[in-house]
């Protein structure tokens, strides 16, 4: 009897092997249980040209070396777990395809945060920066019975910065952040922007005070690394400039 599979099987397994390509994956490894120093490992695997790099890493982990460690979850660019330095650029491993980097790709942990094991870094300093800018709507003017009104134009004003998934690709691509742990970094400013320019929020001044301090927005040297790195296409540098201008001219 025919089952669902006879019909619906998308059938990677039946795909002829000539469709696959060879990809050499070079990974900077680190595990203090093994060695104080990092080292490089290299594997060559065959995969579909459209295979996501995160799935290539799984192929290595599941069939070659189970100790290879990295964070991942959704595998389609929405959870923000798998930001890595891929061929020198911060990207999400689930948004890079094998054919984009073949025949050879070099993967390292994102910079500026302590490496804990292989591609896993300590996210706590990053999350502390996020928490420091009061990342929640503040409005003490009493709650309406239904929704607060907001015009489509006012809603559009901060649309870009609502897309942030806190993957840290921007912050860990920033040379200022590498050199100074105190700097809150682009992602925290993006999230401050999201509230400062939300017509429903009343704490813009408070956030701008936080961001005008020496760890704040004026550390930015406008190198645009953050904008290039953002996997969500947020114009990060522009958002930072808008916050700077708002502080200088108290206009928002």
């Amino acid at each position: 009897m025919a089952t669902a599979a006879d019909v619906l099987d998308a059938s990677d397994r039946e795909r002829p092997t000539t469709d696959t390509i060879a990809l050499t994956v070079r990974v900077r490894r680190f595990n203090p249980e093994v060695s104080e120093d990092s080292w490089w490992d290299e594997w060559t695997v065959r995969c579909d040209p459209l295979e996501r790099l995160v799935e290539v890493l799984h192929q290595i982990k599941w069939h070659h070396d189970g100790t290879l460690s990295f964070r991942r979850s959704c595998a389609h660019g929405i959870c923000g777990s798998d930001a890595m330095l891929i061929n020198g650029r911060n990207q999400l491993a689930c948004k890079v395809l094998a054919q984009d980097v073949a025949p050879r790709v070099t993967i390292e942990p994102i910079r500026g945060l302590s490496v804990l094991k292989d591609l896993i870094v300590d996210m706590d300093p990053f999350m502390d920066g996020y928490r420091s800018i009061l990342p929640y709507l503040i409005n003490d003017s009493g709650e309406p019975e239904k929704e607060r009104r907001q015009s489509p134009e006012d809603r559009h004003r901060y649309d870009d910065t609502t897309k942030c998934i806190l993957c840290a690709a921007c912050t860990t691509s920033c040379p200022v952040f590498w050199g100074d742990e105190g700097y809150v970094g682009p992602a925290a400013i993006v999230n401050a922007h999201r509230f400062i320019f939300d017509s429903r929020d009343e704490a813009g001044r408070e956030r701008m005070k936080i961001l005008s301090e020496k760890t704040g927005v004026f550390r930015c040297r406008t190198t645009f690394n953050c904008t290039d790195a953002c996997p969500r296409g947020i114009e990060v540098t522009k958002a930072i400039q808008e916050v700077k201008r708002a502080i200088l001219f108290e206009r928002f």
Partner: protein
Amino acid sequence: MTTTHTYDALVVGGGGGGLRAAIELSERCRTAVLSKLYPTRSHTGAAQGGVCAALGNVEEDSPEWHAFDTVKGGDYLVDQPAARLMTEEAIEAIYQLERWGLPFNRTPDGRIDQRRFGGHTRNHGEAPVKRACYAADRTGHMILQTLYQQCVKRDVRFFNEFYCLDLLRDDAGATVGIVAFELATGELHTFRAKAVVFATGGYGRMFRVTSNAHALTGDGPAVVWRRGIPLEDMEMFQFHPTGLARLGVLLSEAARGEGGIVLNSEGERFMERYAPTIKDLAPRDMVSRAIYQEIKEGRGGGPNGDWVYLDISHLDPKVIEEKLPDITEFARIYLKVEPLDEPVPIQPTAHYAMGGIPTDTDGRVVVGADEDVVPGLYAVGECACVSVHGANRLGTNSLLDLVVFGRRAGDDAARFVREADLATPSEHPEQPTLELLDGILGRTTGDNAGEIRTELQDNMFDLAFVVRSDESLTKMQQILTSLRERYERVAITDKGARYNTDLMETVELGYLLDCADALVAGALVRTESRGAHFREDHPLRDDANWLKHTLAYRERDGSIRIEYKPVKMGPYVPMERKY
């Protein structure tokens, strides 16, 4: 060596349901949230199209119509009082999210905008209705972010990258706490608490083609199942019709809500034949089966004839840009297809578990046909079964389920802990967990977990997907038995303590095997077709015998016992499902 922590209430899982419960709890008692991911990585963030509530902002609507659609969409396996409660409370839940800052799209006069979604209709099926509140096609992302922001505001205590591996109960069955594995150190922690809320999400990773994150491995259902709690309606698993071909990445139903259509390889809009009234906006189970039928009759496309197409190329590019930006990008990145110009290859993808841990409408876990309450134990969201989704969930009702029942569970648990005493765990509560981990870590040679996982996923996709039969399910049951034997011998290469994801993934595989066992057992006994569960050897719904929920119990000898409990009926009498 384990560390012991004591709280009034614990929430296991940092997605929408867990965070909503935590907001309610943290203001009233000592609360901690354990999450195996950083909470903002949770899969609630992947939900796209919207969250329904009969606000009536764009056109006339009522919670009663919403309840009817939910019951009919669920093919009458829905507990009707629960559905009515959810659709009534939906309205305040949405306003509350807005007041917490959720950036909904707006109508010209500044109110929350609403759009159409599958199975949501005006006046009991007359025509599609605009009921889904949305934030572009990233509504789930905005709900997750907004709830996390509110947790930051309340300074909720998080244990990030802590993985719950056991539920502790006393001799009387009351909740004592949990045991968790700290990923960063490999250390075990015992958490004592009066109340535990499970909110661990689904288990779509048992199928090869799925929209689900790698993390969705049925942890909560499996952990409680191993401790004597039954699982309800596990055979009811939703296959979403529009997954990206080959990958399963979700393309939101919002694409069809905005006017997108599904085409076969002949370019025919075939849903006109299957659901003449609402066509492409028929519920997901019907569209998935229609796709299956088209493919079976030779009207599929792609190299193996197993794709159909989602076409949005006739829509205004401005609408696509503003309302469907993310899914458009998915097609461009992963399939190298330009949705503005050409149809996107799609196939059904394993999407959502309607079944799970049985609860009442306060999120309390209930056992048996008489629904005996397990003191202090709660479950919310996809890991739970209230049941508001019955045999087939309507689009957007999952996000609604999270906020409505997350709040209710948190509220009830906060009241419970005020009166309950903190129970004392047994002397070495972590012992069974230690044995589980040491068993895996101790073997130097054995089976490969990756291969077992691949075989599970391939076979579940082949044998227990959109169309099932006694033959396919019996075969799957035999395969599961042999996979489990191999799993008992599994060995891993990483023996370290620090971020041992090799170990964690292997434990997750064991949970997936448990959930697959329960799913197949339920699917085998249910000799009818209802909602997402389609048996080609029993193609009709059989209300005389099967208008009831299944409860699967794991017996001590490893076998599965099935019990039943009645569906809670209400005003809606089962009738043939036509759209």
